[in-house]
């Protein structure tokens, strides 16, 4: 796969380094083309189900770039949900892994053909296995944060979920366990708010003015940001993460994002033109500020589209898991 390109043109009045802007853009395009290819695989019968995060790239890519990447409590833990391919690519994952998971091949690096697309697991970078229940990660995350607090260092726990998932009790558990005055935890609690719960609009799901307002009751520093702007997302995430790293206290960050292809393949996985497209907006701005030309961005997108198609063809030809493999990994072997 291509490495992100660097641009040597004159600097633009965007508050991030040109190199970083280009890197974010590159990963956003890479993520979008990956998700589009996953959807296409589903529609062509090369996968049973698609769920993912087109529309969350502007938030998820900066998140992955800012994580302290490594294994063990000295590094950041990510308890992710199923819309975060952008974060995984920003951590350095090759997209073919996600394509293999879509095709449920034996080579699927995240679940060996056992789980849906977007259900990543990456222990080497502290990414906990993504599961289909929309909220359980909020109950689990305080555990890694407790270990990190005890160990010292500046590793933090990051947990993400959607706004609809905050209706589940596990979100309240996360707020309670993270903010006890006797043991506040170094945890960044993230809610990506796309204003939907599957087919039900947000106003039929929950009634707080801001999800982040729920943090106030627990004296948790809280903020709602525009998650469709990667520059805002990068800066706000950086600030929130620095607070959690330094203060060893929780922070609740709500990011307003879009859901560009619906909830999942169950709702058709077609492009929703009424929602803000973070990539379109960012590209318009990059072009306007002279960071990248339209031609450069089109070339990049075409190149990634071709690379994803080629990777999908590779994945499609790989064997399914051996039926006998169902018995593997029910239990871990003693080490």
């Amino acid at each position, binding site marked *: 796969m291509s490495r992100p390109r660097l641009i040597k043109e004159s600097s633009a009045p965007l508050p991030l380094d040109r190199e970083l802007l280009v890197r974010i853009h590159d990963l956003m395009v890479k993520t979008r083309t990956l998700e589009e290819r996953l959807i296409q695989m589903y529609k062509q019968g090369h996968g049973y189900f698609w769920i993912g995060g087109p529309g969350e790239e502007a938030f998820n890519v900066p998140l992955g770039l800012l994580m302290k990447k490594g294994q063990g409590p000295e590094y950041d833990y990510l308890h992710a949900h199923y819309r975060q391919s952008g974060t995984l690519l920003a951590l350095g994952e090759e997209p073919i892994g996600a394509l293999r998971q879509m095709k449920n091949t034996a080579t699927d690096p995240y*679940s060996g053909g056992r789980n849906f697309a977007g259900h990543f697991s990456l222990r080497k970078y502290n990414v906990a*296995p993504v599961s289909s229940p929309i909220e359980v990660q909020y109950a689990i995350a305080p555990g890694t944060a407790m270990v990190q607090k005890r160990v010292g260092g500046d590793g933090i726990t990051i947990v993400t979920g959607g706004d609809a998932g905050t209706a589940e009790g596990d979100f309240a558990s996360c707020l309670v366990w993270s903010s006890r005055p006797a043991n506040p935890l170094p945890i960044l609690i993230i809610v990506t708010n796309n204003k939907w719960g599957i087919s039900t609009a947000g106003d039929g799901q929950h009634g707080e003015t801001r999800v982040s307002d729920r943090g106030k009751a627990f004296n948790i520093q809280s903020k709602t940001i525009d998650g469709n702007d990667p520059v805002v997302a990068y800066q706000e995430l950086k600030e929130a993460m620095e607070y959690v790293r330094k203060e060893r206290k929780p922070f609740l960050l709500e990011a307003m994002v879009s859901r560009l292809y619906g909830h999942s393949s169950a709702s058709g996985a077609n492009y929703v033109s009424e929602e803000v497209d973070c990539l379109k907006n960012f590209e318009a701005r990059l072009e306007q500020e002279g960071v990248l030309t339209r031609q450069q961005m089109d070339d990049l997108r075409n190149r990634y589209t071709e690379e994803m198609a080629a990777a999908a063809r590779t994945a499609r030809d790989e064997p399914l898991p051996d039926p006998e493999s169902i018995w*593997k990994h029910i239990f*871990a072997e003693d080490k």
Partner: protein
Amino acid sequence: MANMAQAIRMALHYAEENLGVTDIFGEDVGAPLGGVFTCTQGLKTTWNSPLDERGIIGAAMGIAMGGGRPVAEIQFCDYVYNTIDLLKLAGNTCWSSNGDWNLPMVVRTPVGSGIRGSIYHSHSFDATMTHIPGWKVVMPSTPLDAYGLLISACKEQNPVMFLEPKALLRVKGEERIPGEPDDDRALSKLIDAPLGDRSQWVPQWPQLEAYAVPIGKGKLVREGTQVTVVSYGRTLPLCARAAATLADEGLSVEVIDLRSLWPYDWEMIKASVQKTGRVLFVNEDTEVTNFGEHLMRRTVEELFYSLLAAPKLLAGKFLPGIGLADTLEMASVPQQNDITTALRTLAHEQP
């Protein structure tokens, strides 16, 4: 001899000193109470959690992911039910990540009747727990087995559910735990927290020794030739007593304490049933889709031609709860007379 609560406490002390246990926690698990059944008094890694069972199981999973070794407690198994999908998740984490992650964690919870605990302090959990793959499930009936099984659980790389038969927590054992003093009163003085103010109290732990009961191995409690009874937990000593009573009547009953429900010691059951041709399974969880039904199914499928009588299951009645009144509890779950009668009837059954 130590009772089971003391045995659990000593195993946990051994585990935090020698096996890397980092967090022993749950509702009222830390000071000052040390657990509603005193199982966690005086331990150094205990702490009190919010009254939030989902938070407790979730935290245990997270601590295990972070490299800790947690022993979480659900105060009564009746309150574990709102954590079922987290238990399922803990059980499938290794499998669904294709071996990427594993969760070395223990969950302890008291189960069963026997203390007149009414509807929400008498439930069993073995039937439900054995429906959740990816966990190892154990249930001791003696203090020594509790000690040895808990030490094995704390060495595991996988989630272990440690079910504590609450009716037996205060019952003294007949076998000495390696390192425990000979005198019960001496042990109590060393490790039982005093009544009243305990803020200055520090336990004096005996020099405990490693003793592990392997998970998956049953115990032949009594040898016999005419009928087999397989049980675990509260009903096990009742089965042993029934066997002694029936011996006076000239009947020879073999008693197996399963100890581990998953994995379980099929070889021990098989060898016994092939010898006796008659088998009774006894537990106190509700009888519909009961773990004993699984054992019966396997007995019928694999040992049919060794059987001299239909295998039987004696379990709790399929009721929404166990009523508080003495008469109600006694009528709801197997009692001594039920077991003795069932064994006698089975021993005499003719086609």
